[in-house]
């Protein structure tokens, strides 16, 4: 693994381990979304299986925005971001390190959230449960990969926290659709999620590649 990537990754993980800022806010926020949805829709039986995939995906999406906003904002203090700009290492490594770190945070949140989710929505999975271990990471990667990129893009704008959601969500729509359809078809057991998993995989490959290529342009924009 390239050294710059490793350095950034270890730094981000260490900061998060010591402060737990992103983690706690994400976990509590997504828990709130799950509770609010279950109060709003009163899920039971088949209906809860039908909407559970959508609720899980949207809860993850909203919750991770808080972490994504923090990802670059925390580098502004002490002008760390300027130092990162001047560092003679490729920006792509910095980008990838941030994506991996935030991917891990969101994944941990999902793992902790899952049991609550199953309880609140009285779910028992009809399809192949192990496929969720492919769908959720792929969807999370799509979200975090684009999110970190757009957070870097909006960091020097007015209203940056709002702007991130405004530009991230429209672009994320196809991945959200694929994630929701795949999760729902696994939970309900009807339909084949393979097509949606392929779509998610394609989305991840395309957008991660383009982000890696264009990250320096955005990061050094002046």
């Amino acid at each position: 693994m390239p050294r710059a990537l490793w350095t950034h990754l270890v730094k981000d993980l260490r900061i998060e381990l010591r402060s737990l800022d992103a983690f706690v806010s994400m976990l509590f926020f997504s828990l709130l979304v799950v509770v609010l949805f279950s109060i709003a829709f009163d899920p039971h039986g088949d209906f809860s299986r039908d909407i559970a995939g959508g609720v899980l995906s949207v809860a993850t999406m909203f919750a991770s925005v808080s972490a994504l906003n923090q990802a670059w904002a925390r580098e502004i203090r002490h002008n760390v971001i300027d130092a990162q700009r001047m560092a003679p290492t490729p920006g792509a490594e910095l980008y990838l390190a941030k994506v991996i770190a935030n991917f891990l945070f969101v994944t941990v949140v999902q793992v902790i959230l899952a049991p609550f989710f199953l309880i609140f929505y009285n779910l028992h999975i009809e399809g192949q449960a192990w496929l969720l271990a492919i769908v959720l990471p792929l969807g999370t990667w799509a979200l975090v990969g684009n999110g970190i990129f757009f957070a870097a893009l909006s960091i020097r704008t007015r209203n940056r926290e709002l702007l991130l959601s405004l530009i991230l969500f429209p672009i994320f729509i196809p991945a959200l659709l694929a994630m929701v359809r795949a999760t729902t078809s696994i939970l309900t057991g009807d339909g084949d999620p393979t097509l949606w998993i392929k779509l998610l995989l394609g989305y991840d490959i395309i957008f991660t590649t383009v982000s890696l290529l264009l990250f320096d342009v955005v990061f050094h924009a002046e």
Partner: protein
Amino acid sequence: MKKPAIVLYVAVTIALMIWGFYQAIYVAPTDAMQGELFRIIFYHVPSASVAFLFFAISLAGSICYLAFRHNRPDWAQISDAWALAGAEVGVVFCTVVLTTGPLWGRRAWGIWWTWDWRLTTTLVLWLIYVSYLLLRRFAAGPQMQTLAAVLGIFGALDVPIVYMSNRWFRTQHPAPVFGGSEGSGMDPSMVHPFLWNMLAWLAWGILILGIRYHVERQHQKIAASEAQEALDA
């Protein structure tokens, strides 16, 4: 030389619009299935074509801006003006599509909206370009053009994926509303009015695009001269 050409173009555009209106309302025969209602096609479809064309212009402008921004600053500014004009006028035409569509759908299908792949793709396209315009509004300074260009490319990349995903979505669950009413062809007597309207709306769109481009170029020149004055002072 330049001014008479513009005046001539404006005159031709207005004449085309009047001719197109006459063709659409008086010449085209009433549709056997939908009656008078079908005449909305003379506004709906040309607007959609113009919107897609202008989004393509916006994408080309974004790519050219990124390509030229270091070596050819003046070309880059021109590209950026095209990117902005294409996105902005494209959003206006896309709004027309999204307004006339439900009006049509309400009478023809009995519902305002359905999450069909074409409708969804158009809506997502509209959302993406509105977010592009918002970014241009919120970001300040010279970096804004670079950021906007990158977002423009991302947005354009997203469109084919949205299109494919929604096609699959609907192929798995066929939408009842679209039972063969699409792609059934057009009567020859309607084709001529249709083409006239395509031409008229394209000419009109290009006129608006040109005006928007010109305004943006003036903005850029004023901003550049102000920056120069600040340097000289």
